[in-house]
């Protein structure tokens, strides 16, 4: 049985592009490991938040943190299941450097039966000097629909059967 993390490593760009918003802001996968993900967003003038400084908008960092956290949860699971963000707490340490890409490293450090917990850092040049840090909680088996990763995996013949619990997930 293929673990989600193996499929995500092979099909990372396709999985990412399946999310229209991730594609729209130009997210890219840097690396996927079990329970860990690194994604990036390149600098683009239309993603700037404050024209006086030329820095990428905090909202882009929010979307990147949320998405990377979700990917780290998927890569921590033994089987495909839909997940949903319960809460996301972000601390902004400093503005990103003007014109720089933003990276995000997320680590899903604990998975329980229904909830996964994640910590993440967003940075421009140095992971030790973050732009923002985040703490998030995700609900597992969030709904009966398939996750984008699972849809693609199935379409490409990589999927394992859905976990039994997803059948009884709440609508």
């Amino acid at each position: 049985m293929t673990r989600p993390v193996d499929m995500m490593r092979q099909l990372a760009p396709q999985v990412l592009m399946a999310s229209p918003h991730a594609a729209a802001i130009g997210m890219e996968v840097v690396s996927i490991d079990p329970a860990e993900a690194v994604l990036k967003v390149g600098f683009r003038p239309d993603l700037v938040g404050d024209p006086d400084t030329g820095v990428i908008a905090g909202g882009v960092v929010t979307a990147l943190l949320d998405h990377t956290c979700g990917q780290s949860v998927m890569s921590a699971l033994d089987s495909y299941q839909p997940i949903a963000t319960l809460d996301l707490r972000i601390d902004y340490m400093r503005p990103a450097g003007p014109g720089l890409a933003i990276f995000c490293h997320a680590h899903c450090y604990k998975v329980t039966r229904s909830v996964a917990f994640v910590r993440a850092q967003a940075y421009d040049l140095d992971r030790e000097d973050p732009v923002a840090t985040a703490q998030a909680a995700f609900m597992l088996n969030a709904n009966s629909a398939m996750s984008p990763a699972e849809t693609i995996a199935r379409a490409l013949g990589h999927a394992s059967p859905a976990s039994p619990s997803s059948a009884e997930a709440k609508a």
Partner: protein
Amino acid sequence: MSDTGDAALDLDARLAEILQRIPYARFLGVRAELAGDEMTAVLPFSQHLIGNPTLPAIHGGVIGAFMEMTAVAQLSLSQGLVRQPRTIDVTVEYLRSGRPRTVFARAMIKRAGRRIANVHVEAWQETRAAPIAALHGHFLLGSRDEV
């Protein structure tokens, strides 16, 4: 026209300018409507806001970003700031998945001191009584007498 009418017009123009100046607000397609000095931010649905196409649902990051922008715009509008407030921290609670339709948000400034403001934002779709997400945040103000 009465003075109050002119003031309302000024506020409308200022709000439009605040949003127009933020490239990322234009990218998302954020608009805003005013009732007095109370602002309702409006995010019309668009395909590029989708996070999960199988549901489909609006990306959680988009909803967080939209609420953060609502807080920033409301602060800029009512605090007479010379530069954009900077976000210190936000906590986003996701209550329902965002359906492919318009999202609305309103910010309440719980406290605005000389340097720091505390703002709560709620986002909803069909009815305000069923919010899809909430945001609590602190923002650093660049007030007139400080920059």
